[in-house]
């Protein structure tokens, strides 16, 4: 009984070590892509009621771009949307929503795109799983 258990542990250990070695080899077949070295961003898209002129849009873009953690901002009066990409370590969607609200003195809410039929192929595997696998792979890349 004890011998069988030891053999099972041994075989499992060797198998796991083999799989791990194979994964490390796989991770180092190619160098990690450059995007792996770029800091990840997050995004928020805000609907600002009553914002209709290009002057207001330019003012929003200028002020929001100066805010801490913002990497890019676009304000479009045609859609009344303000989209902002930001470093999630430095700011948050809530902070930016408040910032835009104070700036425009208009009601601000998260833009909703529900009800619009999605176009194109939809991947059956959630993208977050694929991205998590890629991150683990790059963590073991030594090239």
């Amino acid at each position, binding site marked *: 009984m004890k011998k069988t258990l030891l053999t099972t542990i041994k075989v499992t250990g060797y198998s796991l070590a083999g799989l791990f070695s194979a994964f490390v080899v796989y991770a180092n077949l*190619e160098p990690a*892509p*450059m*995007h792996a*070295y*770029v800091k*990840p*961003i*997050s*995004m*928020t*898209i805000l609907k600002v009621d009553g914002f209709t002129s290009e002057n207001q849009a330019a003012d929003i873009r200028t002020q929001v771009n100066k805010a801490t953690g913002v*990497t*890019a*901002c*676009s*304000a*479009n009066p*045609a*859609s009344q*949307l*303000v*989209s*902002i*990409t930001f470093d999630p370590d430095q700011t948050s*969607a809530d902070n930016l929503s408040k910032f835009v609200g104070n700036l425009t003195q208009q009601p601000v809410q*998260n*833009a*909703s*795109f*529900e009800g*619009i*039929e*999605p*176009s*194109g*192929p*939809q991947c059956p595997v*959630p*993208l*977050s799983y*694929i*991205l998590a696998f890629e991150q683990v792979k790059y963590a073991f890349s030594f090239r």
Partner: protein
Amino acid sequence: MKKTFFILSAALVVLMSSCKKEEEAAPKSLYDRLGGVSAISAVVDQFITNVAADPNMVRTFTPLLTEVGKGNTARLTALRNNLIDQIGEASGGPQKYTGKDMVTAHKGMKITDTEFNSLVADLVAALDKFSVPTTEKNELLGVLGGLKGMIVNQ
């Protein structure tokens, strides 16, 4: 012996300086002229925000915009990574685009000429924001413009 040493040293100096001249003469790639990966990622971020606020792009980007609205940034990250790699590779950088080919990626999306032109206008606005010189801008747009046939009406 001394003479031979001097001749060899002189030959080595001439050889090294000629190599240096060749290196200096090699034209910089579009990737280097654009400013490398950090400049490309800044342009890509601006491009993505332009697209997200563009009313002509809502239909095409609904899945991404809806997920961003729910706080899920997986699609955004995947798109950003692919754009950085694709623009980097197309401009002669060390990146390697590993995403789907353009026809497969846009299959069933039925992107119209108007939508494609709006996308190009959003990219031009992003390049203008960072004052990318006309030569570099046209070179990049020329490379990406070649993909139109693989994207529109798929």
